[in-house]
């Protein structure tokens, strides 16, 4: 989403001014703390008056977020934040609206509203804290938990096939689709800035560690020892390179991605797939660097960054334009009360 306000006076507040008097109640070590910190760091840079900012969440650990932001905020009901921001944006397009949600909140109970928000492209920032678990209800598997996951509600392992949130957002015609993680503050801040700069629904999936019920779910992506091999940070116009010594790359063989060794003398950086945020087809392929290693299949690193961006009209802009057009006709309440045909008695 983008709200254009650059007056330096308007933005005269700091991260500290975004801290509320409420005690933060997440478990010590929870990834939510880092996300809160990055959001509180980035928001003052954006030049948006504090009173024009609204944080709206559903229910879940992640959805406690608005209580900790000294802006306008609403902690609503499970899964419905997407519908609430849609109503708010319909009538108040000038506000900077941020939605905070969990994997259960947005992809399970709120799945319907989630896809419709993306399709309508309201100009909001949707931060999805994906911890691949139901945190607040103490550890049941979620729609992003992997198959076979053993949790309180799946003692023999889950038989559910998980959602791929990025692919789902692309499928719902999201106009900004990105991924980041709690443990990479620099990248997360950059993704928050990019989300804010986009006009339309900015979908940012944030991998968030629930150290109580799903500790280490994203360890391979966050730990130093494996991060470089297992992650792929994509940037517009840059080749897809990863690996401990940036020695691996991804090449496209037709529509088939192939991992290549940049040291084998057969491939150079020039042969690699150059990331193009505006290419929907390639974004689709990239989103599939996700499926957990199947026996015999190529193992791909997990991409982070902006997968896809598109400029498309926002719902509220269309609605406002219709109302402006309609207003060329006088709003005459007496004429409305009177209707087309009347008769007089007495």
């Amino acid at each position, binding site marked *: 989403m983008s709200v254009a306000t650059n007056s330096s006076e308007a933005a005269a507040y700091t991260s500290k001014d975004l801290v509320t008097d409420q005690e933060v109640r997440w478990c010590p070590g929870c990834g939510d703390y880092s996300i809160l910190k990055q959001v509180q760091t980035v928001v003052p840079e954006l030049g948006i*008056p504090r009173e024009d900012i*609204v944080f709206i969440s559903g229910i879940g650990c992640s959805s406690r977020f608005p209580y900790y932001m000294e802006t306008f905020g609403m*902690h609503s009901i499970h899964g419905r934040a997407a519908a609430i921001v849609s109503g*708010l944006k319909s*009538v108040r397009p*000038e506000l900077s609206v941020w939605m905070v949600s969990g994997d259960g909140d947005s992809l399970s109970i709120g799945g319907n509203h989630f896809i419709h928000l993306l399709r309508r492209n309201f100009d909001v920032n949707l931060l999805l804290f994906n911890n691949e678990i139901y945190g607040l209800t103490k550890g049941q598997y979620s729609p992003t938990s992997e198959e076979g996951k053993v949790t309180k509600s799946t003692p023999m392992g889950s038989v559910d096939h998980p959602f791929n949130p990025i692919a789902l957002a692309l499928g719902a015609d999201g106009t900004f689709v990105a991924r980041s993680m709690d443990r990479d503050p620099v990248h997360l801040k950059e993704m928050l800035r990019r989300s804010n700069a986009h006009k339309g629904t900015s979908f940012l999936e944030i991998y968030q560690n629930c150290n109580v019920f799903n500790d280490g779910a994203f360890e391979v992506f966050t730990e130093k020892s494996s991060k470089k091999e297992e992650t792929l940070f994509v940037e517009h116009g840059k080749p897809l390179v990863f690996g401990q010594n940036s020695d691996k790359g991804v090449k496209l063989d037709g529509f088939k991605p192939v991992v290549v060794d940049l040291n084998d003398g057969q491939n150079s950086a020039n042969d690699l797939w150059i990331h193009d945020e505006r290419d929907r087809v390639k974004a689709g392929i990239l989103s599939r660097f996700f499926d957990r290693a199947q026996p015999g299949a190529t193992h791909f690193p997990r991409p982070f960054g902006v997968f896809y961006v598109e400029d498309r009209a926002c719902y509220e802009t269309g609605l406002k334009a219709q109302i402006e057009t309609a207003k060329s006709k006088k709003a005459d*309440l007496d004429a409305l009360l009177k209707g087309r045909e009347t008769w007089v008695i007495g």
Partner: protein
Amino acid sequence: MAEQQQVLERVIIKFAGDSGDGMQLTGTQFTNTAALLGNDLSTFPDFPAEIRAPQGTIPGVSGYQLHFGSVNIFTPGDACDVLVVMNAAALKANLRNLQKGGTIIANTDGFDPKNLRLANYPDGVNPLHDGSLEGFRLITMDVTKMTRAALSDSGLGVKEIDRAKNMFVLGFLYWMYNRDMAHTEKFLVEKFSKKPEILEANMKVLKAGYNFGETSETVGVRYRVLPAPMPAGTYRNIMGNQATAIGLVAASQKCGLDLFLGSYPITPASDILHELSKYKNFGVHTYQAEDEIAAICAVIGAAFGGKLAITTSSGPGIALKGEAMGLGIMLELPMVIINVQRGGPSTGLPTKTEQSDLFQAMYGRNGEAPMPVIAAKSPADCFDTIYEACRIAVEFMTPVMFLSDGYIANGSEPWRFPQSGDLTAFKGNFITESNGDKFLPYKRDEKLSRPWAIPGTKGLEHRIGGLEKQHETGNISYDPENHEFMVRMREAKVAKVADYIPTQTIDNGNEKGKLLVVGWGSTYGAIKAAVKEARAKGLDVSHAHLRYINPFPKNLGELLYNFDKVLVPEMNTGQLNSILRDKFMIPSIGLNKIKGLPFSTSEILAKIEELSK
């Protein structure tokens, strides 16, 4: 021809035919003409439940009932005096609703072997000829043939010609009831301004029908229905859903807030969405959501944003909104939830009427979650009642449930509409600037209402949510004492509304006596007519009709205790009756009808007579 003229006090006509026969249009035209001639009236359309039911079959029959007279009319009427049928199925579907000795006007072409078969008459049986209609006055005419003859040299195709059949019937009825055709002629000129050949055809057939009455000796008598003694003023005809929509626009204008409607289509509420979507020039924002939950949640968002926010639905959709209504109650934001009730449970009887969602309105949420509930009694009353719902919502910062039903939503009646200047303005509890102190979002005023501080207001940043909140600060609180305090506070706030609504009046009859009939919602007309008749017969009976159901008007108990017996007619198994018994501990008596059909006056009258013995 020695023409006889007879003056009638009131007439009930039912127009019935196949969905494609244009009976709704015929009915509305006859209605508008009656209105312009000063009759009082009430109408009710009767649509087929299926959109494309097979032609000629009973499920495909579409009807329109009109009750008009030179006396005050309160309902679309019970059994009809005149039944106009375009085909055999229409006769079969409606005959049991015709008075003994009533008149049938039948299009013989609709009684050919094919139509008879489609209407499930046994082989070789034609009710027009087998004497089964002996107890009625039967007037037959081959409408199709005469329409085709009138348009033989029009150059139009048979399909287009046949589409004008309804005008023949209308013309004939205009003759029969001595009505001026000018209104319909004007209507046709406007409707077909771009299709001169169709216009000409319709005009011609309308006149042909009129002339047929005059020249044929089919009917010896013509009737006159004189103007009714109505309060002086300017009137229009209005349907319930239309009045609801216009009432919302009026409320929005009068409280100076743009209207936001979040809705998901459902019979019989959809017309409010359709109607409001035409009024964008009044700043009306209509939003067709992905489901009913999204619709009310969008309303919560819009209310938080400072607008007059409304959601419309019917029973099944209201069930889906339950959790979000609870959130609205916790957030204490103004919004109106409109339930145009239909037959339930589940999908129930979508096109039929019922009052069976009163308990749902009162109790259909988790936790202690009271909200004001108010109900409209007639099509035109939807205007005043929805206006009042908006006022209460905005002044008390609360969700309000407005109840209407399929009967008044689609029914129509003359309405002495107000001038915008007659409507009392009201305003939101906005707080527009910080006084420097810490903002207390749940600090209450004398109405126990909290301030409305909308995003964009500098210095008033605050958070609200569905978790229990501390008194005044609105911070999350799990304190046991505080929870009980807040539950009672929310209850007290709703109860407080009673200080700001009119006391209950007696609609007809004395303030004290043997029997009081208490109604709510769309039973108004039938109760009104029944009580009037009973009183004319000398019975000691009064009528009170409730608009405010939660809270009740402050004097209601006193009023009930003034009568020996209280009768509560309802189109459900006794929901208001239970609430009255619970609240006032009176042995009130229920009269219940659960057929998807409104009460007839005679059903209520019979009960009054029984209780008056």
